[in-house]
């Protein structure tokens, strides 16, 4: 009887100890998960006793020298492209019917580095468009794309400039000229 009781007591003690160890281990695990650095080596002291200069290159002597306005201006001037427009101040169509071929002279001078294509506007409506004109080319005719009543008009001819390789639009300029439709 006595030995049985002793065994029981021993078992109880073992169980209690194991339970306590389990609880302790769980607590440590939870603590480690919520504070990952808790068991890592502490950071070096900010007193600098372990941090050293990293000789990984050489800086440039002197203060920063910004580009002067003149230098920037020179760079911008070198990038600037000029174009020369040359066109007749009068467009003439023998008839106002769409499809009529009229007379108009536009020249893309040899010194230009862009392809041009001109559009003639009567008010807000485009009434004629030239074919593409490459440098050192010209046109003498243009096709009417809309019906226009006979008469004299003030129109605007837009010279559109395109990249000669990609065909991308670059810019445009306008010319106020006269239109005669017979």
């Amino acid at each position: 009887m006595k030995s049985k009781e002793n065994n029981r007591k021993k078992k109880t003690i073992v169980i209690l100890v194991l339970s306590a160890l389990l609880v302790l281990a769980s607590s440590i695990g939870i603590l480690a998960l919520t504070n990952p650095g808790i068991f890592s080596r502490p950071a070096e002291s900010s007193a600098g006793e372990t941090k050293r200069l990293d000789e990984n290159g050489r800086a440039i002597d002197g203060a920063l020298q910004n580009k002067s306005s003149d230098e920037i201006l020179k760079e911008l001037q070198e990038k600037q492209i000029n174009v020369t427009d040359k066109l007749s101040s009068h467009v003439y169509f023998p008839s106002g019917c769409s499809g009529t071929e009229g007379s108009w002279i536009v020249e893309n001078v040899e010194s230009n580095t862009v392809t041009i294509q001109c559009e003639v506007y009567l008010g807000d409506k485009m009434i004629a468009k030239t074919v593409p004109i490459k440098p050192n080319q010209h046109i003498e005719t243009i096709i009417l794309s809309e019906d226009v009543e006979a008469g004299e008009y003030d129109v605007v001819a837009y010279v559109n400039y395109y990249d000669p390789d990609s065909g991308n639009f670059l810019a445009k300029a306008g010319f106020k000229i006269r239109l005669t439709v017979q």
Partner: protein
Amino acid sequence: MRTKTVKRALSLILALAVTAICSISAMAADTTVTGTGSVTGNVTVNGSITALTISVTHPLAVDYAINPNTGTAGTFTAPDISIKNLTKCPVNITVFSLKAAAGGTVTLTDVDVADKTWASLNAADSKKYIALGIKAKDANGWATGYSTATHYATKDTASLIGALPTNTTGTMTLVANFGLAFDAAYTAKHSLVLMFNLV
């Protein structure tokens, strides 16, 4: 021998007579006006006039640079916009439009100079707003009466800058007000359309 000489002389006289008669006949094809006292003859004169060719040289595009680090309010640098009139008579130069355009890393919004306290713009507004304008740089080349006003991009109507005499170059320049709080390098675009016409 004497007969031959006479024959030759007669031939010559005959040839001269025929020539004279033909001349008179040719003159008889013109209109002849006859009458007494004053006589009026109407002669129609037909003219053929070719339209003048307009020719102008100008920049295709204009670049500018903003450096907020230099100067008291940053530095705006832009090259001159030179326009040369190659037409045989004066040509008007008009700024038809100047507007912010897409194509840069930022697309700016045009505002008036007075709309913003430029030195105080924050980073977001610095890369959003600009007051960009264009004007005649000086009187050189421009005909008397040219405009000294600045055409700002907020203006929706065209501005006549002035007239350029033949074979003369006039210069325009860009001006701008801008913020300083740029947090990186950016590019921006504006579209400038010039208009030319005979004076």
